[in-house]
């Protein structure tokens, strides 16, 4: 005669511990908690090690302000250029059906997945003194692009423009093309259709794309340090300054990191209505 436990173990041919495992949510909860912890712990570590009373003092360290100012100026220029050039590109792509559009979308995805350092190398080779674009620019204008604030903007554009275009294109594709058709029959030129129909109907998507692209430009490190260098006040953006200050003035690096964390959270707040409901 079998014991209760043995009976239970034998039931349905499945050992009891397996059944208990499948019936409980403990394994899922464990893995999920571990995953969450890996994301939250570094942020907690940063906040815990911050010298809150001295935060303002640390933010006055000589390395901090020029970096913040440069980051603000360059990322805002980048954002402006990304929106000026990227919005029409996104609109045309959203209305295109041909093979060319498919290829262009694929090309735009490359900088999104490319390691930023590789992007920096590519930028250096294209815009450098002997580069595809850099050589004629130097010959014509005597202008050296690498290791200038212009290079910072070009690096940021390279990584954030595709991001912006792909996000906005998605929003624009969900605008019913029959709105364009009606507008055209009413006498609106393609440019007017874009300005008066496409832009307003895709406005929430454009705002979200802009916020993401700006956050992306603000955090840009690899392409910038490779292509624009790390010159204080000229090409040393906030992420670069954090990296440098970590060696010399850790509290300044932490203070700058906190400032950037605050900015990131503010961007999330802007997007909250869209993705966090």
């Amino acid at each position: 005669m079998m014991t209760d436990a043995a009976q239970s173990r034998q039931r349905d041919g499945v050992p009891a511990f397996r059944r208990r495992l499948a019936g409980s949510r403990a394994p899922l909860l464990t893995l999920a908690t571990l995953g969450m912890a890996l994301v939250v712990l570094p942020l907690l570590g940063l906040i815990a090690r911050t010298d809150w009373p001295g935060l303002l003092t640390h933010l006055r360290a000589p390395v901090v302000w020029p970096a913040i100012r440069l980051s603000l100026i360059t990322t805002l220029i980048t954002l402006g250029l990304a929106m000026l050039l990227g919005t029409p590109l996104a609109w045309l792509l959203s209305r295109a059906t041909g093979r060319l559009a498919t290829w262009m979308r694929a090309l735009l995805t490359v900088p999104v997945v490319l390691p930023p350092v590789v992007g920096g190398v590519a930028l250096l080779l294209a815009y450098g003194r002997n580069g595809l674009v850099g050589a004629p620019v130097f010959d014509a204008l005597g202008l050296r692009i690498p290791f200038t604030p212009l290079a910072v903007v070009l690096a940021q554009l390279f990584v954030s423009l595709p991001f912006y275009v792909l996000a906005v294109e998605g929003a624009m594709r969900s605008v019913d093309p029959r709105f364009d058709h009606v507008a055209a029959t009413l006498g609106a030129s393609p440019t007017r259709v874009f300005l008066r129909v496409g832009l307003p109907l895709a406005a929430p998507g454009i705002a979200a794309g802009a916020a993401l692209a700006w956050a992306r430009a603000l955090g840009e490190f690899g392409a910038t340090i490779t292509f624009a260098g790390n010159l204080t006040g000229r090409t040393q953006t906030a992420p670069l300054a954090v990296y440098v200050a970590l060696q010399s003035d850790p509290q300044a690096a932490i203070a700058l990191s906190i400032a950037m964390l605050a900015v990131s959270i503010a961007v999330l707040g802007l997007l909250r209505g869209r993705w966090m409901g």
Partner: protein
Amino acid sequence: MTLEAHIRARRGDFEVDLAVHAEAGSVVALLGPNASGKTTTIDAIAGLVPLTGGHVRVGGRTWADAHTSVPPQERSTGLVAAQHLLFPHLTTLDNVAFGPRSRGMRRAPAHARARSELVALGIGELAARRPRELSQGQSQRAALARALATDPDVLLLDEPLSALDPATRAEVRAVLGRRLAAFPGVTLLVTHDPLDALTLADRLVFIDQGRIAQEGPPEEVIARPRDPYVAHIVGLNLYQGQTVDDATVSTVIGPVMTSGVESRGSCWVAFAPAAVSLYPELPVGSPRNAFRCTVASVEVLGQLARVRLTTSDGHPLVAEVTTTSVAELRLHTGAALWATVKATEVSAYPA
């Protein structure tokens, strides 16, 4: 402004190939089954679908032919679809003024023009509302106002009433009818609903698989359908055949005695469902056409019933009888009986 068009355009797996002519001030209804090429025809005239051949000419101006294609914004059309497609970010007034503004009119006169069009369609008081604050019927009137505010040469209505509930549809149909009476341009009206076509159109064009199945004034098309789909829409039994003598036509359902043929040769015979009587046994004595049938379905509509039959050769025949007969004959699917039609009730006309 007459419209003179020969449309050839791709639509999925077939090519639309049909000619449309319309005089200024007239309303032409395009009817046909789903996916027959009606919307493609409309879009090709608006310039939203490229022609693969043919031409579009309006008032002597060429909008499209083998050499040219005027872009949609430089043609003079007004488009209304089943969905109102009002711009959600603009007020009703700004929606209606969008056309005049796009054509270079200044703000104040454009708003005045829009306001008068809204008043003409009976929704002047809704000018300041946003589209989401309008009812279905109001939205569709606003869409009509927007299409008319540019005084287009050609007004293209693509099933404008099909998304409305029956009560609203009747109301908007009446408004549309009144407004079209005063509209000097050409109107093309795509519709599924025979009532729209009969109450609004001067001419009916039936389209099937991208070709014209039949066209003509409504009275003529109703009386003499020449296409199975047309017959279905106007509710007649229709069979193709060959004349045998002055009154008899040989058809797919057998020889049919008619009220008389106009000319010898290939012809159509048509009779109304109400002209059909049903008997359990072949009636003797009277000079009638009689067809052996089985019942396919019975649909009761108040005092009358529509009985769909299949002849012994497998062809459809529709009879309309009283509900009393349905009960007396115990009509049910599969029941065998005789359908008779008096010769005087059958018309025959050349194919």
